[in-house]
């Protein structure tokens, strides 16, 4: 997918090579779940499905943090909004069973509205201050979800909503094995393809936005807000647009999560999740789409590798389990973060611009060159 994103960017440079790369990438992405499924089993396929959801989240947050430079620590709230909207409109909780093609766009719109609600009062804030307010916003949404079971039971409180309808398109449900043209593909495969399609759509939208008048305005605000204003950019509207777009991607991912999981509870939307998505953006390479995708994949897969690998490795080395794999997982994860930030401060796959920025070429050097 990263190569695909890359090849889309270099489309004009070499059309034929790009088409070839896209086809090769497409075939690989199509065959990928079968390779994973047969090599590692279904639990890993499930993790891959989750990775796709996190890619969507990371790309949404990237618009706010990476492009517009607005540090948002409560992003998971939009994921929650999308997830709960799906849960309430397609579950026995209210007895509603609306179709997916209606709920997912509605989730995007509602999350976008929440984006404006968060954005509007925080327009004057930047950096640390914005981070604190958005962090509070994320917690407020979670606490609301936790407590909206009385006096009228809307969210079912801490127990969450269960029995959510699986995603079904027309008459086809993704929850049961599908047979197409004699092929039978399992539910996890079907979800994979559906999520992949939507993730690719979001990648496409993000790339198009990045190289547009709107994308340039976002980056201009990140670089120098006063200069951006003086260039005639209505920073209020453009910032709100960044919040809305970012939030709507989160809303889509949230809806898919609810349908996939069949169960949502406020627990899934805690601060740690916001931090995790932010890590994906920063670690992968803020503002660089392939980098953010890479960040999303790595930070979904790595903790699972630690979780699954820690036990057997300890058994092999020491003959017994010394450290609880769950505790070790966070320890190794923290270590990985520190190492990356030390050796690749601009992220694993920074944009060419950021790479130059961090290479230590100071403006004074450039001055000497120029004169």
């Amino acid at each position, binding site marked *: 997918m990263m190569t695909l994103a890359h090849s889309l960017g270099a489309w004009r440079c070499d059309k034929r090579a790009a088409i070839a790369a896209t086809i090769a990438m497409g075939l690989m992405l199509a065959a990928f779940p079968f390779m994973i499924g047969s090599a590692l089993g279904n639990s890993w396929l499930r993790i891959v499905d989750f990775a796709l959801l996190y890619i969507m989240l990371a790309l949404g947050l990237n618009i706010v943090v990476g492009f517009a430079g607005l540090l948002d620590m409560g992003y998971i709230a939009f994921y929650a909004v999308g997830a709960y909207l799906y849960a309430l409109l397609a579950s026995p909780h209210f007895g509603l069973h609306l179709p997916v093609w209606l709920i997912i766009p509605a989730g995007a719109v509602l999350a976008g509205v929440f984006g404006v609600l968060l954005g509007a009062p925080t327009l004057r804030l930047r950096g640390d201050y914005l981070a604190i307010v958005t962090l509070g916003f994320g917690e407020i949404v979670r606490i609301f979800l936790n407590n909206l079971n009385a006096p009228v039971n809307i969210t079912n409180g801490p127990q969450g909503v269960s029995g959510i309808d699986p995603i079904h398109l027309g008459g086809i449900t993704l929850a049961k094995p599908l047979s197409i043209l004699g092929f039978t593909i399992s539910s996890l495969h079907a979800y994979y393809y559906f999520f992949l399609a939507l993730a690719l759509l979001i990648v*496409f939208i993000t790339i198009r936005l990045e190289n547009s008048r*709107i994308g340039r305005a976002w980056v201009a605000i990140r670089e120098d807000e*006063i200069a951006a*204003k003086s*260039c*005639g950019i209505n920073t209020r509207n453009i910032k709100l647009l960044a919040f809305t777009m970012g939030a709507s991607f989160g809303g889509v991912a949230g809806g898919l999560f609810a349908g996939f999981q069949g169960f949502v509870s406020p627990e899934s939307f805690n601060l740690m999740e916001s931090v995790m998505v932010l890590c994906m953006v920063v670690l992968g390479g803020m503002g660089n789409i392939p980098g953010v995708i890479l960040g999303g994949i790595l930070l979904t897969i790595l903790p699972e590798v630690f979780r699954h690998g820690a036990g057997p490795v300890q058994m092999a080395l020491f003959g017994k389990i010394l450290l609880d794999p769950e505790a070790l997982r966070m320890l190794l994860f923290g270590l990985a973060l520190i190492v990356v930030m030390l050796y690749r401060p601009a992220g694993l796959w920074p944009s060419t611009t950021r790479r130059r920025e961090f290479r230590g070429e100071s403006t004074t050097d450039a001055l000497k060159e120029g004169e």
Partner: protein
Amino acid sequence: MNTQLLEARAIAKYFGGVTALRDVSLSIRQGEIYGLIGPNGAGKTTFFNVLTGLYHPDSGELIFNGEKLPASTPHLAARCGIARTFQNIRLFGNMTAMENVMVGRHVRTHAGVLGAVLRDRRTTREEAAIRRRAEELLNYVGIADRADDLARHLSYGDQRRLEIARALATDPKLLALDEPAAGMNGTETEGLRELIEGIRKDGITVLLIEHDVKLVMGLCDRVAVLDYGEKICEDIPVVVQKDPKVIEAYLGGSIA
């Protein structure tokens, strides 16, 4: 040639107890180069910031091109046709020179999210026009060869030029330059003078804050002098140079 482009009526601005501007009135004519000078702290930049909407004036109003200028909305000032540069250069450092100028076209273009995503014919055409205009402007200010370099990696003089190109990209009627020659050597200043004269020839009125008195006197049609937030003089350069109040402001009180 003699029509008013900008009329400032009794602009006042206070910062707490400090009076930055006290009833400053001045008028700038269409097509002229108007200089604004004064000792450090006289209120020149404050006036600029009021004019371009960064500060809200405590009283007074600005009439631009026959209409009242909305206060404290920088993007509307730009839309009305006032572009500016900054005393401490404010470029979008991590964008290329080209992108910096393209951002300047923002206010004269319209593509929204839908256009950006769908890339319909109109958006593609607009985007091509933005790029073309940006190339022209980089060429105009003489840094076309640095188009793909990050703004922060340009030399100081080139950064000044890039800032002017970005300002010109907004199709201004009035270009306000805040100490464009600060920190420039003789050759660079000479280049700047030619650039400003060229801009005026293209029909853009120029408002210039400058410390380089030689540059101001040689370039400007009329000059206003600010001292302690008040306008003490406004005339053609030769008269201003001889004005006793101006001499006093620059050289200190008279001996008598």
